[in-house]
């Protein structure tokens, strides 16, 4: 079925944030720090101010000291006397056109006095390390307390269940103790961060922003200034790729200040280079995994210690723990009688870490599924049979105690293996097959919509959430049409501004279709009960909770060919098997999976922001490489239908199922091919060549 937004997007008619034009609109440019840690000695903007066409030059002193953030409010609008990462905004220009703004930005003279920097969590946690923030515990939303150790902590969480972990490891017949690292990885959305702000005569601020959660944005903008959220009206525009990266206030507070000070609408659209240097990429990680099994190959213990580089600000993480909830899923698919997970996030003088498609899960699963693969091999077991023997069965609780309406890991694995066919490697290349498993629960978020009866029997669905590409608006069209017995073409879908509907939590967390399913069912029921006259509407809302607890399994199988001469890894085939309930739109569902797999293959083999001396050196899309048409292997999608889903549409989440376990599957395939274990992403030819020629196995 055709996407409701398809033609507008494919013909260039859709208006994204950077396409918004307002009368008298000015264009912004930002001056950014080249130093990871420095005191601002002076800023001389006289030359920039004098340039024709320049309307404002703002520095930290001009914008006030209010702090912003998704949970912890520690992010200034512009650096206040110190800079904490290379790329931090120090001054901003608004000018008649973008070229003038950029020339003016280049003319701002900033004198810095470099300060000592901590660039990795290891440096940040060392005794006596310089502090990134003098009093991180004092920020609104902070979870650390004064005196917490180590210094420079953003967050620390620990979960433990079952028997004594050290005793269980000591009693194990076989053990592994391995460390894995992943680099900072940008989300790679093709649309750089962009927004437009306009201050009305009434003092209200109108915002158009590439942001996936407009109602949250409104609160995030208002609260730090002591204003009510209603002072902001956020217009919903299509988001040109999100993948978790577009949920923070980002540049909107600065853009609003430029609009206030100039009295003109202002657009702040980043260049991609700025996005790579200074947005909110996936946290770099270092994970130690200790795992054991008994002589029969049953897992006895899993101890996972994760350290994430949170960068200079914690304000890009929304969850109450200020951690990455993916850590909680370590080992969640298996029976594990003794488990311990610790996850620490460090402040460092590097680009702030944020969310990327199942935050923390790709890093966690890369480490754990690699380590368990190695444990199987150490125990002399086939990695597939080892996983099958240890997978949760129906009725089992997960290691940390979560229980589900059903557990379909074994069925998903069996379906994957039944479909799996070896693809031969070209002559002279080493063939490898690797597997990895992930499971994740599906929830429902807060949301709202309205249905208006139209003359002629059609309806318009007014929605409170933007379309980030995953297909929420098309799902609304499909489900409302189905519910009311209409053709899809009789259902129009229109986003309203945040002035017009009750709050929505934003698109993300693999909960969109489940939420939309429940919301549409309620809206349809209200519509049928009230039978509104043409021009009249009904409204529906949903709140989280109240659903059965479900988890969905994904099994990824990678086949690679490794060139023994160069170490280059070629992807031969990916098989991706998914435990699903109902599927609202089969084609959209399939493309969500395919897109997730390719994004993760790109992360596995290519992507690294290459932070050197605190600076992002892969600072354009030529250096921060994303997979292209040529890099994507054939992908076979296997669905295991018939599961129990959530909400009226009876679905399981899919948005974060395609990607998470893929890097581990590729790493395990490389292990199978070369007999040595890759322990860092991305898996470069250089790294594989090194392993081949050391002949070293882990």
């Amino acid at each position: 079925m055709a996407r409701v937004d398809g033609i507008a997007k494919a013909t260039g008619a859709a208006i994204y944030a950077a396409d918004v034009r307002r009368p008298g609109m000015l264009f912004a440019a930002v001056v950014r720090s080249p130093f990871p840690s420095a005191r601002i000695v002076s800023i001389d903007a006289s030359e920039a101010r004098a340039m024709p066409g320049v309307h404002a030059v703002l520095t930290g002193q001009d914008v006030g000291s209010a702090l912003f953030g998704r949970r912890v409010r520690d992010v200034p609008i512009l650096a206040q006397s110190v800079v904490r990462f290379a790329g931090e905004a120090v001054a901003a220009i608004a000018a008649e056109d973008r070229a003038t703004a950029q020339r003016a930005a280049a003319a701002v003279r900033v004198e810095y006095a470099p300060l000592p920097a901590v660039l990795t969590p290891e440096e940040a946690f060392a005794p006596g390390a310089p502090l990134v923030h003098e009093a991180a515990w004092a920020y609104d939303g902070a979870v650390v307390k004064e005196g917490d150790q180590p210094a420079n902590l953003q967050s620390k969480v620990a979960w433990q269940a079952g028997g004594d972990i050290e005793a269980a490891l000591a009693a194990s017949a076989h053990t592994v103790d391995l460390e894995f690292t992943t680099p900072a990885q940008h989300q790679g959305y093709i649309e750089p961060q962009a927004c437009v702000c306009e201050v009305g005569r009434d003092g209200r601020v109108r915002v158009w922003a590439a942001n996936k959660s407009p109602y949250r944005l409104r609160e995030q903008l208002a609260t730090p200034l002591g204003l009510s959220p209603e002072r902001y009206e956020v217009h919903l525009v299509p988001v040109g790729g999100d993948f978790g990266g577009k949920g923070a206030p980002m540049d909107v507070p600065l853009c609003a200040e430029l609009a206030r000070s100039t009295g003109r609408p202002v657009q702040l659209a980043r260049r991609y280079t700025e996005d790579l240097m200074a947005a909110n990429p996936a946290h770099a990680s270092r994970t130690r995994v200790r795992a054991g099994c008994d002589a029969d190959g049953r897992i006895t213990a899993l101890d996972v210690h994760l350290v994430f580089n949170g960068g200079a600000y914690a304000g890009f993480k929304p969850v109450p723990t200020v951690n990455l909830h993916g850590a909680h899923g370590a080992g969640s698919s298996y029976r594990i009688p003794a488990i311990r997970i610790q996850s620490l996030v460090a402040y460092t003088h590097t680009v702030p870490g944020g969310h990327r498609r199942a935050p923390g899960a790709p890093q966690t699963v890369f480490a754990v599924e690699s380590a368990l693969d190695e444990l199987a091999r150490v125990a002399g077991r086939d990695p597939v049979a080892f996983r099958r023997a240890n997978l949760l069965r129906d009725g089992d609780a997960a290691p940390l105690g979560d229980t589900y309406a059903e557990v379909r890991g074994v069925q998903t694995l069996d379906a994957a293996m039944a479909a799996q066919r070896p693809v031969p490697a070209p002559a002279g290349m080493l063939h490898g097959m690797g597997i990895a498993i992930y499971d994740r629960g599906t929830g429902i978020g807060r949301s709202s919509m309205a249905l208006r009866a139209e003359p002629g029997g059609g309806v318009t669905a007014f929605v409170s959430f933007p379309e980030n590409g995953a297909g929420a608006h098309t799902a609304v069209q499909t489900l409302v049409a189905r519910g009311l017995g209409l053709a899809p073409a009789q259902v129009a879908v229109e986003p309203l501004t945040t002035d017009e509907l009750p709050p929505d939590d934003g698109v993300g967390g693999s909960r969109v279709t489940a939420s939309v399913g429940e919301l549409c069912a309620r809206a349809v029921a209200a519509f049928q009960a009230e039978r509104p006259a043409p021009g009249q509407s009904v409204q529906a809302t949903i709140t989280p909770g109240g659903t059965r607890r479900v988890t969905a399994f994904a099994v990824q199988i990678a086949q690679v060919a490794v060139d023994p001469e160069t170490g280059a890894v070629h992807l031969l085939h990916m098989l991706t098997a998914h435990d699903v309930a109902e599927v609202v739109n089969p084609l959209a569902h399939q493309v969500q999976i395919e897109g997730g797999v390719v994004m993760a293959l790109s992360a596995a083999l290519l992507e690294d922001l290459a932070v050197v001396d605190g600076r992002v050196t892969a600072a354009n899309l030529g250096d921060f490489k994303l997979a292209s048409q040529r890099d994507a292997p054939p992908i076979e999608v296997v669905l295991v239908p018939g599961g129990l889903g959530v909400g009226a549409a009876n679905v399981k989440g899919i948005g974060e199922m395609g990607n998470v376990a893929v890097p581990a599957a590729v790493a395990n395939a490389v292990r199978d091919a070369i007999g040595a274990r890759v322990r860092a992403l991305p898996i470069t030819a250089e790294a594989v060549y090194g392993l081949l020629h050391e002949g070293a196995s882990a």
Partner: protein
Amino acid sequence: MNMRLKLNGDVVTIDTQPDAFLLEVLREHGLTGAKEGCAVGVCGACTVLVNGDPVSSCLLLAGQADGADVWTAEGLARAAPHIAAAFADNEGLQCGICTPGQVVSAYALLQKNPHPTDAEIRTYMAGNLCRCTGYASIRRSIEAAANA
């Protein structure tokens, strides 16, 4: 300078700086279908047809484009609507930010090669990055457009 273009079939004159990039010129002219992604010629979001060839308009100076025959996704919406329709029908897009560029490249490919193989599509379209779809649905869309 006054830049003369044949733009989506119409002759237009646009006042601009010779060192402005064609992408900015088009977007300032109200044609915002071509997007700025990478701005360094690798993502293809800014792809437009210049004298029949797909070009990264983020790298082409206005001075170099003077006198050219330029087509954007907006123009192809009228000249070759079956391509946009094929993308919409085959889930050849998600967020859509790459899509105007994909449509322009797909059009150019089909002009040169009306029935490309899967491998030919991959090679020709390698300069149009898409972060959302994983590319298979884009190939399926192009195949559908070829058979439309």
